């Protein structure tokens, strides 16, 4: 009975998403201690309200960026330029809108969105070209745009913070649709699209194949260049949407600080979600959980009241613990340390018995 129970438990803990989900739940429960109505979700003024909703809403840009990052990492690449793309797209959209006579014109906002996302696609193509066409190492190739992109964003905003006042644009990151925050719907849609694109077609398998063994994939006839370009374009597109969300939420574009360090959070979310930096197998579901976990952690830091000067340290600590708990090697070590000595003692006992006669 107990044996079968522990058998079930071990089957459960071997599941890829077990640990991230568990830690996410623990984190949320911890909030309950400090905020008794943490889990309360209500409809106020026709809008969904509640701490959980906020976590998803504020986490939406990170989910978007991490989503694209997942596919890039699955090809054994990395994209450091997403933070800059966030800034560039936000800046371009806000610049366009601020130049309109009527900032509330839907057509103007749609043009701004179209321009920004179009630019994101071009930037993604650039990354893909450097990695797949030129054969540059992904970390270097995207570092170029990471650095140059910040400059580009500042060029667009002319070094200023562009502030706008546009109701239609506000919808993207700060609005509601059918009581649900619009950014959540956008993120959900993007996740659904990514899942459909990778798992309903053969794209997911081909990505995993290219990331798992690039040379073998080439010799199996896979056009790996095209696939690599596709994932960088998709990643930049996702980052572009995140840039729109972020600038829309604050109704302004800050070339310097928008999306700063988001690439690191995104990489972290991907890794927590169980996708290996060495490429190959990826899990979109895992990435979403990872992004939510990081956002929940930020929220927790505020609700628990960690002093602001120690928040980064606190975050680092939790992330370290999460990664350690997730590592099978680490768990095995901790587990063995408790078991090994007895096994060794038993072995010693046995030798003694045999040597005795």
């Amino acid at each position, binding site marked *: 009975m107990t044996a079968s129970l522990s058998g079930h438990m071990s089957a459960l803990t071997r599941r890829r998403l077990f640990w991230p989900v568990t830690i996410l739940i623990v984190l949320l429960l911890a909030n309950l201690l400090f905020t008794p109505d943490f889990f309360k979700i209500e409809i106020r003024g026709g809008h969904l309200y509640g701490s959980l909703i906020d976590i998803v809403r504020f986490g939406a840009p990170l989910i978007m960026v991490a989503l694209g990052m997942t596919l890039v990492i699955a090809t054994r690449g990395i994209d450091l330029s997403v933070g800059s793309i966030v800034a560039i797209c936000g800046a371009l959209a806000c610049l366009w809108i601020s130049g309109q006579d009527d900032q509330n014109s839907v057509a103007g906002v749609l043009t701004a969105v179209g321009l920004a996302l179009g630019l994101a696609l071009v930037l993604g193509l650039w990354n893909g070209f450097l990695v797949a066409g030129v054969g540059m190492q992904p970390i270097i190739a995207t570092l170029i745009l990471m650095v140059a992109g910040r400059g580009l964003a500042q060029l667009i905003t002319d070094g200023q913070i562009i502030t706008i006042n546009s109701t239609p644009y506000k919808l993207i990151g700060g609005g509601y649709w059918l009581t649900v925050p619009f950014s959540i719907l956008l993120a959900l849609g993007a996740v659904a699209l990514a899942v459909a694109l990778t798992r309903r077609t*053969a*794209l997911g398998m081909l990505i995993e194949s290219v990331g798992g063994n690039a*040379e073998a994939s*080439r010799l*199996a006839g*896979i056009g790996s260049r095209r696939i690599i370009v596709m994932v960088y374009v998709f990643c930049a597109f996702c980052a572009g949407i995140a840039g729109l969300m972020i600038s829309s939420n604050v109704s302004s574009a800050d070339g310097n600080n928008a999306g700063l360090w988001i690439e690191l959070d995104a990489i972290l979310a991907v890794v927590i979600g169980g996708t290996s930096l060495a490429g190959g197998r990826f899990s979109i579901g895992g990435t979403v959980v990872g992004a939510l976990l990081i956002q929940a952690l930020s929220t927790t830091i505020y609700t628990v009241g960690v002093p602001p000067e120690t928040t980064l340290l606190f975050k680092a600590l939790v992330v370290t613990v999460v990664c350690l708990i997730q590592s099978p090697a680490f768990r095995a070590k901790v587990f063995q340390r408790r078991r090994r000595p007895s096994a060794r003692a038993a072995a010693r006992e046995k030798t003694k018995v045999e040597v005795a006669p």
Partner: protein
Amino acid sequence: MAEPAAILAMTGITKEFPGVKALSDVDFRLFPGEVHALMGENGAGKSTLIKALTGVYDIDGGEILLEGEAVRFTGPLQAQQAGVSTVYQEINLCPNLSVAENIFIGREPRRLGAIQWKKIHRRATELLRRLRLDIDASALLGTYSIAVQQMVAIARAIDISAKVLIFDEPTSSLDAKECEQLFRVMRQLKDEGIAILFVTHFLDQVYEVTDRVTVLRNGRLVGERLTAELAQIDLVAMMIGKELEVLEQLDEQPKSSPAALQDASPVVAASELGRDGAVAPFNLAIHRGEVVGLAGLLGSGRTEVARLLFGADRADHGQIRVDGTTVAVRNPRTAMAHGIAFCSENRRTEGLVEDLTVRENIILALQAERGWSRPIPRRRQEELVDKYIKALRITPANPDMVVRNLSGGNQQKVLLARWLITEPRLLILDEPTRGIDVGAKAEIQRLVVSLADGGMAVLFISAELEEVLRLSHKIAVLRDRHLVTEMPNDGVDVEHVMRIIASGAAV
């Protein structure tokens, strides 16, 4: 006569993996000063036994005695410190470091924290001289051949004071001369009292160098014999049980192409095809239903010929004609579009994606042909994969198993299946039977014969001349990156081909 005490005694070793008993109740012993062959088919448990010994795996039952003391190593490092070292088929040294550095890496002699480079070089040179290896200890390891690198690995192992040396298929990528060199070193080490466990698939080598043989089959011990008292046929019988007749049947295959085949235009013909630094321009025609064997030593350009035909490397000269029409083969994709398939000799680095499942690996090339947007329907995938798992007898017959966990022979079959489902017109097999056991080897050879009977053109590359001669209708001989001659396989014997290779001219 009383036997000397065994230096290593493994008794009742049992190891289970989820769903499969890899070893059950296996005994194995090793005496000082002997070379002991460990033999068996793929999946017989040879690797598992070695990994159980060196602590890569925790065993579920049994006992390991090293010099009479019970041991349970936590990993290869600890095993090595206790005197049990392994030399692998794939060299695990650093090609970008010098020979001497590789020998002493991780245990450099130091004085006051500083590495004593002079001492390292002196000791390395002494060690290499002791093994009668004429190489420069300060040169980069990567500049030497695999065979020499292997010797360096051995030098490293014996310097760490090995009592037991495990050779895990060291000869599968060596040519005859290099093997001879390795055997000389093995005999020397044996005379020094070191116990050597030798895993190989080559029967000749067993008889050439070993004193004792232990055979495993399906994770069980079949028996331990003195090599001198064991007839070859009995050894094969121990390894593959009742499948022996398969090998005998194969010998009766017709050898020369039916005349009719030669008249039709070839499926694939290369004219003056070549690549600078890889292989000199050559002509080669392969007809429908014909098996063309490529013979030659390692480095003679065998693989390069295959890679040019498949577009894995781009040709500098000449052209390829498919059904008489000149086609541009720029990359593997275009080669595949013309019905050419290629199983690389390096199945793990250039063939399989080890983290993907058997099913995914099998459908990979077909899916690549269709493009990402037209996935093969799941049910069709399962039908195809099931069919080939059965036809090629891939074990375990689990399409969702990760390929990394399969034995070498089964991995090879997965790779074969990948190309067979694309229904190629020319199948290029580069060393398809390397590093796999007699049983799987016979199955693959039989498959080649039946594919050709079904009309497929096959280019068969193997380091084993006998195998090439047994299967091919036509033989092309390579030497020093030149295609020397091409001849029908009627009454050609091994010696004849060897003379051509040796002299570099048709005789």
